[in-house]
């Protein structure tokens, strides 16, 4: 039965299309639901043919109307195609009712139409974007059942924006995307400026498909007009259809008010002509071409060189920063640091491995005194393990530093020593290292340090970790007195580069085996190199031989 197929969901649907909207076509089918039409649609339900079907044929119903005119109508409507209603035909034939040029134009069209045989649609008609209805409808549309609902301030502004947009469509779209280079602030905005800029400004074109549901013969009364469908299209190709197409759903129903409640149903379907296959293909080819050319241009800019490492080596880049020092006793601090490279590590000859920051006066942040350095350093080193037999973990470079205070009176004091191993994993690391300074027993040293500066210093900074000249198995610092001082914060951004990372089956967790793999790669590379050299030597030798010898040989 038709009842079970009703569609009650009248929410709007949003479609997107890049094709020009003038290709849009809708078919609207409107039908009054009466008992006879119901029966007519399902003749198979009558099992007993006691009553002759012809009696119920609506073609000869009591009212004498022909079914096609009264109860059913179908129309195919294009975008912004104006179909006149009876009301409009009556209205515009009267010349005094025409006020705007559009009204006059409608009048002409109606007269031409009447002369050529009347209009084809009776009940279904449309209101296009330029009709008065569209503006009024937007302005006075009620959202609630309250009697006292009036359009709010925002509604007025939005309506104004849309109306103005109709007049100046070109201007507003061109202004939307550009950045105003001069006069970013308007100190005294005019009314028009306020109206344009205070609300959302997407240009929209609207169209209403309406139906006149009055009794036949009395078409043309405006209180019987019902909105069947609202179409909104904006300049970005977004099409909003409210309610949605009924392709997969049942028809929508309208129940008219009044003494005689009638039931109408209607369906909307999309019958836009699909794009021709050749056109689609051409379009796709053009796009592919365009994107391909853009990609080529980009890759030509980028180029294809990239600095590679020697196979079998791991290159380490550290972009670091001495950020701050906090918690120290005295003021005017600076940090002096250097990087120590263990065995098997090498760095480019011009590489600077040490640095001195600026002297910074501290300031109080919370409970601490902090000094901000923000000192950048970059550091590059390569690990190259030639020796195949020592397959143990490589030692990573260490950063040693000392914090020194040098004040206005030129008192030089060591504030702390510290060290940090550069991070093994690539990525960003922020590390705070605590420091200590050596102290002497007794108050004399401290007094001297306070008044004139000068204190115990380490001769060899590597004592902070493992002294350079340490040979035994147990390190003992017994008897060495220190005092804890503040801490220094570093940022490191580490990058590691190696040919081994490109190998298939490389896993980050198997770093050890990778380093082992360096040896294999290295040896393979050596063999290949040796082969290439030998071959080159042979070719050179062959060139130097006299010609007759070469020709006679079978090489």
């Amino acid at each position, binding site marked *: 039965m038709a009842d079970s197929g009703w569609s009650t969901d009248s929410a709007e649907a949003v479609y997107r299309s890049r094709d020009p909207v003038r290709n849009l076509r809708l078919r609207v089918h409107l039908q009054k639901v009466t008992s006879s039409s119901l029966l007519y649609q399902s003749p198979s339900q009558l099992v007993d043919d006691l009553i002759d079907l012809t009696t119920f044929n609506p073609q000869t119903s009591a009212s004498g109307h022909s079914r096609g005119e009264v109860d059913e109508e179908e129309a195919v409507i294009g975008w912004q195609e104006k179909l006149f209603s009876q009301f409009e035909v009556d209205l515009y034939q009267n010349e005094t009712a025409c006020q705007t040029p559009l009204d006059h134009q409608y009048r002409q069209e109606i007269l031409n139409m009447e002369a050529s045989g009347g209009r084809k649609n009776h009940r279904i008609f449309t209101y296009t974007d330029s009709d008065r209805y569209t503006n009024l409808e937007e302005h006075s549309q009620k959202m609630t059942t309250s009697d006292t609902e009036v359009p709010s301030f925002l509604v007025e502004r939005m309506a104004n924006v849309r109306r103005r947009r109709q007049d100046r469509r070109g201007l507003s779209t061109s202004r939307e995307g550009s950045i105003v280079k001069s006069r970013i602030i308007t100190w005294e905005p005019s009314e028009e400026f306020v109206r344009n800029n205070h609300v959302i400004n997407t240009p929209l074109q609207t169209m209403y498909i309406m139906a006149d549901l009055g009794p036949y013969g009395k078409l043309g009364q405006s209180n019987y007009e019902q909105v069947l469908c609202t179409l909104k299209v904006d300049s970005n190709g977004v099409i909003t259809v409210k309610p949605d197409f009924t392709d997969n759903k049942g028809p929508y129903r309208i129940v008219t008010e009044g003494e005689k409640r009638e039931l109408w149903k209607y369906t909307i379907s999309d019958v836009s002509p699909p794009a021709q296959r050749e056109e689609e293909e051409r379009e796709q080819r053009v796009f592919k071409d365009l994107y391909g050319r853009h990609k080529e241009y980009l890759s030509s800019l980028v180029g294809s060189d*990239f600095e590679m490492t020697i196979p079998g080596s791991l290159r380490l*880049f550290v972009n670091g920063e001495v*950020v*701050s020092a906090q918690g120290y006793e005295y003021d005017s601090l600076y940090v002096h640091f250097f990087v120590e490279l263990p065995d098997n590590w090498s760095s480019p000859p011009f590489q600077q491995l040490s640095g001195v920051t*600026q002297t910074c006066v501290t*300031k109080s942040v919370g409970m601490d005194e902090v000094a901000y350095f923000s000192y950048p350093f970059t550091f590059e080193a390569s690990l190259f393990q030639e020796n195949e037999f020592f397959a143990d973990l490589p030692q990573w470079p260490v950063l040693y530093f000392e914090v020194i205070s040098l004040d206005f009176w030129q008192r030089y004091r060591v504030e702390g020593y510290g060290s940090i191993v550069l991070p093994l994993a690539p990525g*960003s690391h922020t590390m705070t290292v605590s420091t200590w300074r050596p102290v002497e027993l007794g108050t004399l040293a401290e007094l001297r340090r306070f008044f004139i500066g000068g204190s115990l210093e380490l001769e060899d900074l590597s004592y902070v970790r493992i002294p350079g000249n340490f040979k035994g198995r147990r390190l003992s610092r017994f008897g060495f007195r220190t005092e804890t001082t503040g801490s220094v914060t570093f940022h490191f*951004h580490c990058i590691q580069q190696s*040919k081994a990372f490109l190998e298939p089956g490389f896993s980050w967790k198997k770093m050890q085996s990778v380093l082992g793999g360096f040896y294999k790669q290295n040896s393979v590379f050596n063999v290949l190199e040796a082969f290439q050299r030998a071959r080159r030597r042979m070719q050179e030798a062959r060139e130097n031989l006299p010609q007759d010898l070469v020709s006679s040989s079978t090489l």
Partner: protein
Amino acid sequence: MAEVHVIGQIIGATGFSESSLFCKWGVHTGGAWKLLSGAREGQTQVDTPQLGNMAYWSHPIDLHFATKGLQGWPRLHLQVWSQDIFGRCQLSGYGFSHIPSSPGAHSLDCVTWRPLGDWREQLARAFVGGGPQLLHSDVVYCGADRYRLHTAAGGHRAPGAGPDPEKLCPLWG
């Protein structure tokens, strides 16, 4: 042949003694780097915090680099200035940060320092404003001559940056 996208924003600054701050920023790279698109330097608007002491800029940074090597990784350097009601600008701090080298979202906190003059200049700065500035601003992102400077700590700023995964094209070695 490798490409790096840096997309982020300079969020704001806090901890400075003056309000009404703006920031001049720039990104410096080594010789092997080429900027494909984006603005390499810029200046934010002046922001005066109404509540609290953090000045918010939310200034976008969107850069696309192509590089032939890993040296000269991009560095972000900044100068924070303050503007008073008479329109005079005064230096509040220089700051620096490396762009992080691992792909992903990072939140960077960048500390600043400003050069100190002698006690006369400091007194003048407290009353009238103004103060020494760097002659060459590349000291901010190069450490070579820093030891000549005597500075004071400034505030700190929060740029949030995130380099997109580097598109390392296949390296046929």
